């Protein structure tokens, strides 16, 4: 608007600065208003109330025998729950942290040593690793083997070999009793 040619006859330079101020103030209010008006549209794509209401899952563990594993769904994702044997716990604890790509001690990854609870999604590109069923390949370390790109996890769900960068994620969970756990 500093271009005086659009001003009516008789416009003075004082007028020009007043008009500049009004133009910038109006533009600023308009831009802020448009930005605020966009938020409801963007936020409508975030998880809705019914999705958030499903954000915890309770699991009864009483029927899972030692050495068995079950897969439950939490927020649409598979959660591995493995009732570990003494040998598996021992193997997980015996590993030297220095040998791990993503060093983390086994007792930091469990609340009760016999129950290993993990989000069953490979940290490489999101496939579900094999190893839940007795016939599944469990990889060289007795944990899980991802069929997509060959990542191998140990009996604590830690990455040992292959392209995955991190250990299998441990979800937030709490034991409601000795045989019942709430995930999320």
């Amino acid at each position, binding site marked *: 608007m500093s271009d005086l040619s659009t001003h009516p006859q008789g416009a003075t330079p004082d007028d020009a600065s007043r008009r500049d101020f009004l133009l910038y103030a109006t533009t600023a209010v308009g831009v802020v208003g448009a930005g605020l008006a966009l938020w*409801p549209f963007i936020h*409508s*794509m*975030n998880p809705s*109330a019914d*999705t958030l209401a499903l954000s915890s899952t309770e699991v009864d563990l009483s029927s899972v025998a030692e050495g068995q594993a079950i897969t439950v769904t939490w927020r649409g994702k598979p959660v591995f729950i493995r009732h570990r044997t003494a040998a598996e716990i021992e193997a997980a604890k015996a590993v030297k942290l220095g040998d791990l790509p993503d060093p983390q001690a086994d007792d930091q990854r469990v609340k009760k040593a016999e129950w290993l609870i993990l989000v069953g999604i490979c940290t490489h590109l999101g496939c579900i690793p094999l190893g839940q069923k007795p016939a599944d390949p469990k990889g060289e370390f007795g944990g899980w083997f991802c069929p997509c790109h060959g990542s191998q996890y140990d009996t604590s769900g830690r990455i040992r070999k292959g392209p995955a960068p991190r250990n299998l994620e441990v979800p937030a969970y709490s034991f409601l009793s000795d045989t019942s756990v709430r995930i999320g």
Partner: protein
Amino acid sequence: MSGHTFDNKVIQWLDDRLPIFSVLQHSAVEYPTPRNLNYWWNFGSLAGLMLVIMVLSGVFLAMAYTPNVNLAFGSVEHIMRDVNYGWLLRYAHMNGASFFFVCVYIHIFRGLYYGSYKAPREVLWWLGLIIYLTMMGTAFMGYCLPWGQLSFWGTTVITNLFSAIPLVGGAITTWLWGGFSVDNATLNRFFALHYLLPFVIFALVFLHVVALHTTKSNNPLGIDVKGPQDTIPFHPYYTIKDLFGVGILLMVYLGVVFFLPNFFVEPTNYIPANPLVTPPHIVPEWYFLPFYAILRSVPDKLGGVIAMFGAIIVFFFLPWIDSSKVRSARFRPIYKQLFWIFVIDCILLGYIGSQPPEGTMVPLGRAATVAYFLFFPLMWVIGKVEKPKPLPQSIAAPVLKGKSAAAKPMEKA
């Protein structure tokens, strides 16, 4: 369009390859616009704004909506209760349709009053009517989607209009439904078309604007632009005037969205669709009411349908029905009165359409329908017999009265 130079080298580089900035400069900045446009000329751009709001809110609603007879009603309630700001998106879309029609109706009546349909703007007028017809189809199919009682029965009644066509009517209706009644196939295709048609409207609006910029805007005096002294550049004069209108429209529209969101809604549509029970009183949305009244006023199935569609089709012939050479009703004392009688008749038809078709409403509806169709022959006759008031010499002339004829031309114009 070409030949414009820009100081910014990047803009110039792009413009030499794709002239978006030249076109913008030519058609939205320098664009010479009659200097005497009044606020009735705001409603075209306001309708455009409503179209943008409708598409935007509609796309986001579609992300949470399910077009299935078992899930549609529930998914709308899911949008209202669970989706973040879903209530706002739905209320904005639902009431947006009403305000879109408000803007378009005022825009059409503006054209009718100031003779904007006359040569050389016939094609511009036709494109506007095609946009209006497409809007009606889009709005009708959108109303089906929540799958409430009126959605279902409104769809049933309107699609049954086609069964009035002799011989092939039944087959056409079955084809429209994709079955033997309004059902899942109908809902699914209506959703697909309801999503498609707004983009068709966008394309038509583009053509409407191209036609407008070819013939240039009409104006309240209805006389042609004689020279640069009659025009001012579109920017900043009309951008600001349009923006002021946008502010007023948004205040009223958002006032309804936030404080009276169900003002235009029949409560019956909050009952899920039931194909075995027709609600006692079916009415369409308010913007269809005058045509609904015409449909009901003709005591013959096929005749009613023809009258209803004819009530819109007749507008395509307006450039030849109107026999007057003068565009603006300002200079047409008799036509001006006829125009206002027509406006009142349309509102009356709308009221009649909203009432149950019994008692005095039946003869009143017939009288109003006859009056509606009398408008057009009377328009022709008045154009022949009316003596128009003298037209000003130019748009600038009445403003510069008393000053010398050699007015200083507006810069940039």
